[in-house]
């Protein structure tokens, strides 16, 4: 391998690693706040990419119907609870988000011509359709299981993943899609061609990571999410509802997933089930961080990207095997070095 190839592979690795890093952060976030290992993270990647692709070929994306359908289910559940308890307090906001919002989205998309919209608007519309699916899934599936064990939540996550992949096939079909790049620029850096889209991926990921950092360090809700992750009882005593924290973390995870999908859609052909593999590599990064440390998880994810890229050169048939085998030494090392701090009783 000469230097040029090495640099090219490195570029590939960093581009993929940036996406894995975003997903790793989302996984750590969801796990810290809710104790849920969010296997369906990858489906949000696919939904983001495929929704944008649908817009670009002038089709109504299936995620619109998913949004309407889940919204109706949530509304039914909330109405049932409100009539049983005789409390109408929360019903108004639940109906706004789960019925009115999807209805407005449907009207705009069915009457407007998304195919003619500028790219920025298409991207915003794709996010607007996919992000609310996160809190809806939380409300329907995970909120009733708030006190379940990590293992039960994991099994449920596998079920949600399978269900969403099935819905992806139903709504988007088996063909893959690619979207138009954000930029056609090509830069020549020391003999290596860097595409504009690669710069977009890395730049946008870096910006998103900084935004997340500022959100957690500075904003009240960011601190509230951290507080819930550290001490759930303490957080509840401050008036931070576990349910709201869960919904917010799912909204963030869905946003990160969809944004990742939108970023890679121009450089990778995305199929309805592509998200799983991508999510799994983010998961390896998250595991490296012990599902607890954001910077270590992000660093681990970038390493996964590089490892994948270089192993695809030397032993392309084994690249997935190599990437997932990394987990084993990392787990051994972690179990040897981390002291388990018993919870104060």
């Amino acid at each position: 391998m000469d230097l040029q190839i090495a640099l090219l592979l490195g570029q590939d690795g960093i581009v993929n690693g940036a996406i894995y890093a975003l997903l790793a952060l989302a996984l750590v976030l969801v796990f810290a706040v809710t104790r849920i290992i969010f296997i369906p993270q990858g489906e949000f990647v696919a939904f983001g990419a495929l929704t944008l692709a649908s817009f670009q070929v002038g089709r109504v994306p299936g995620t619109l119907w998913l949004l309407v359908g889940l919204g109706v289910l949530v509304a039914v559940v909330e109405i049932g609870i409100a009539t049983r308890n005789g409390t109408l307090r929360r019903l108004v906001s639940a109906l706004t988000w789960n019925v009115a919002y999807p209805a407005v989205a449907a009207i705009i998309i069915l009457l407007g011509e998304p195919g003619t919209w500028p790219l920025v608007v298409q991207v915003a519309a794709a996010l607007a359709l996919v992000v609310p699916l996160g809190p809806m899934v939380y409300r329907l599936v995970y909120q009733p299981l708030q006190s379940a064990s990590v293992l039960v939540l994991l099994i449920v996550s596998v079920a949600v993943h399978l269900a969403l992949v099935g819905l992806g096939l139903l709504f988007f079909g088996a063909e893959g899609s690619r979207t138009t790049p954000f930029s056609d620029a090509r830069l020549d850096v020391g003999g290596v061609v860097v595409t504009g889209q690669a710069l977009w991926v890395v730049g946008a990921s870096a910006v998103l990571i900084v935004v997340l950092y500022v959100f957690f360090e500075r904003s009240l809700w960011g601190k509230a999410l951290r507080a819930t992750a550290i001490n759930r009882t303490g957080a509840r005593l401050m008036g931070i509802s576990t349910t709201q924290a869960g919904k917010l973390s799912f909204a963030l995870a869905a946003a990160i997933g969809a944004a990742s999908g939108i970023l890679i859609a121009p450089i990778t052909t995305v199929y309805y089930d592509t998200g799983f593999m991508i999510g799994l590599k983010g998961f390896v990064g998250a595991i490296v961080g012990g599902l607890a440390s954001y910077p270590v998880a992000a660093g681990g994810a970038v390493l996964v990207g590089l490892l994948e890229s270089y192993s695809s050169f030397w032993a392309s048939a084994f690249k997935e095997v190599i990437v997932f085998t990394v987990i084993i030494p990392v787990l051994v090392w972690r179990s040897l070095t981390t002291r388990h701090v018993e919870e104060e009783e």
Partner: protein
Amino acid sequence: MEQPVILDVEDLCVGYGRVEALHRVSLNVRAGEIVTVIGPNGAGKTTLLSAIMGLLPRSSGNVRFLHSAAREIEVERMVAMGMTLVPEKRELFGEMSVEDNLLLGAFMRRRLGHRDERATMDEVFGTFPRLKERRDQLAGTLSGGERQMLAIGRALMAKPKLLMLDEPSLGLAPLIVREIFRVIGRLRQTGVATLLVEQNAKAALQLADRGYVLETGEIALAGSSGELRDNPRVVESYLGLGGKHQQ
């Protein structure tokens, strides 16, 4: 003039599974009062506060706070209405700074649209100057006394109408206990009502206006602090030299 009742607990029963931990407990707290609940270890004091706050479901009975009696109590709703609990285990956010812990104490007030958390924090720093010195330190690295100060300070950030304290003296050195009790006493002047749960009956009865004695999940005695201090049963079990439950 008698102040209005702000917390009215009526025939409260709470169980863990089939085991009943509280049996038909009734008590009330008036605005601006300090009321104490004393009782031995395992009497159900923590259970009582948790059930009032909505952390634990109740099997029967009523909890009325400021004339609102919801069928199901929710912690977040109680906080929004002005009830705050300093739990026995403090439940601080150990990996966050002292200042962030305090800010989160004002979480509900911020959500309700108040923007006075900086002024409130200055008041808390006035009450506990130690917290000000350590504002950037992680809560998990504080000493026991400082942790208790932070737990109380964090509760005060919510500007509560009713402050509930679960054994604030637990595990603290006598000097710090005295300081904490002095702070609780001063709160009376700001109009905050306090429900103080203690095993340290002597200190609690000195401070409180009224008290209840809780034994094996039931109210055994009730009265003004003076009456309870003079009650032979209280003297024998909680105050006297040979007091069974006095550490």
